[in-house]
């Protein structure tokens, strides 16, 4: 009885401490960033006036932005493809059940984690001085970014595969390449494709804003229109993006449902 009562008390203290910590964190953050809800309420009319500036959308502008929109999709397609291809060796290196040696899979995972911490916009900004303003920088940024996503998801799938076929192949004397090709690949190919498409969905959205730092696509125009306060064109670009992203997500979701 004592034990139960004590445990309850302990867990209550723990909850209380967590709540206090959370409140302190929120208060500290609010203090540091000088949040003022007075500003928000006095600013709400400004949001509506900005939204009112956006209406009506400049429908004729759809025609003009189709080219950059296609370029954005192209950046996403090529970046995801290169990232997917480059991720294959890293996936095999990072999986415990393929590589076997901790001296290989821990460093590979460490590099993967490093890659995933860098925001794609920053990657793009680093590639722009190398390739110049244009889509090539965007493609490189998306390549590195999707490499991180696909490899992370896929190596976990590789680690979860059925070891039976692998053991059978070892038993009949397959070499490492045959072992990977006939034992690992058939088991994870569908997962890999699914993650590839998932990364593609994310990348289409990411590619839209890449132009902000000069890495090609529709973002450059978006930035120009925002800077010159042509809000009814801004809303056209946003609507166009929404439609394209929605269509791509729909198709990709349908394919992914069929894959898994």
């Amino acid at each position, binding site marked *: 009885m004592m034990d139960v009562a004590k445990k309850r008390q302990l867990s209550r203290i723990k909850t209380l401490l967590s709540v206090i910590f959370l409140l302190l964190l929120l208060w500290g953050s609010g203090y540091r960033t000088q949040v003022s809800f007075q500003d*928000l309420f006095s600013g709400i009319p400004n949001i509506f006036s900005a939204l009112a500036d956006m209406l009506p959308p400049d429908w004729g502008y759809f025609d003009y932005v189709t080219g950059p929109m296609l370029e954005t999709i192209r950046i996403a397609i090529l970046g995801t493809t290169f990232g997917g291809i480059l991720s294959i060796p890293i996936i095999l290196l990072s999986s415990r059940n393929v590589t076997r040696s901790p001296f290989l899979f821990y460093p590979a995972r460490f590099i993967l984690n490093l890659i995933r911490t860098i925001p794609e916009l*920053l990657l793009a900004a680093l590639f722009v*001085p190398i390739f110049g303003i244009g889509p090539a920088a965007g493609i490189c940024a998306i390549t590195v970014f999707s490499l991180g996503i696909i490899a992370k998801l896929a190596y976990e799938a590789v680690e979860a595969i059925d070891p039976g076929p692998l053991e059978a192949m070892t038993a009949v004397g397959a070499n490492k390449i045959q072992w990977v090709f006939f034992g690992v690949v058939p088991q994870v190919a569908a997962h890999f494709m699914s993650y590839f498409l998932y990364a593609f969905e994310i990348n289409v959205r990411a590619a839209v804003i890449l132009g902000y730092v000069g890495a090609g696509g529709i973002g450059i125009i978006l930035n120009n229109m925002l800077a010159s306060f042509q809000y009814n064109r801004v809303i056209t670009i946003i609507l166009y993006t929404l439609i394209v992203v929605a269509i791509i997500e729909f198709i990709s979701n349908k394919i992914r449902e069929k894959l898994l």
Partner: protein
Amino acid sequence: MRTETVNKKALLPKDVRKRLIWRRLKIGVIAAIVILIYAWAFRGFVKDFKINPNAGQSIKAIFNGIIHPDWDYIVEPGGEDLLHALIDTLAIAVLGTFISAVLCIPFAFWAARNMSRRRWISGTGKFVLSAIRVFPELIMAILFIAAVGLGPFAGILALGFHSVGMLGKLFGESIENMDLSPREALIASGANRLQTLWFAIVPQVLPEFMSYTLYRFEVSVRAATILGIVGAGGIGAPLIFALQGHTWDRVGIILIGIIVMVTIIDYISGAIRKRLV
């Protein structure tokens, strides 16, 4: 040899043969579509591809800067330094996540299929959430800058509203997956709506809610690092200045700062999430 295979195929029942043909046709069509898409994508790429004439120099300068980061920038008198900017970034992510965690609860119940009798109610909820999701946070930040001016508050609001889309979806799904029998038992014993909510629904979904919120916090920390590019506070502003000014040693130290911060946050949040679920 060849006649043998033909004979074998002829032996197959007719519907199986038909299915085989259909399958081959389907694979062929899919392959053709994929090849067309790639042909289109690569043609544009090859047409536009160019490397800056002084790319070699740039790469050298960037690497040099990243290898020799500007350590003095970490702490500087006056407070315009890396540490303060990182703390600001974290604060933006904390408050943004908190706002979205509160805001998304009604959306989650709206979008959950088992919380309303009519299908179109949850359907519209899901549609609204996905519409919020596709609105990029940078655009939202620009809108909020129009309302509350430049500064971290605009970033907080942008993250807060953008995350509602994803969090609402995840919360809604965890509501859909919960066990409804405790709720029915409570209703049967005469509990009112608030009581069923508090005693049957909240205890079931709370651990998942917290886990998803932490996950979203990890995403928001990454997002908060770039909000400053449009002037919505955090590390992004000094970063974009350093990038535009080509002061690569400054870029290097900021990059290291972001990597260290995100890694620590991911580690802590991952450890807590493991204990939660």
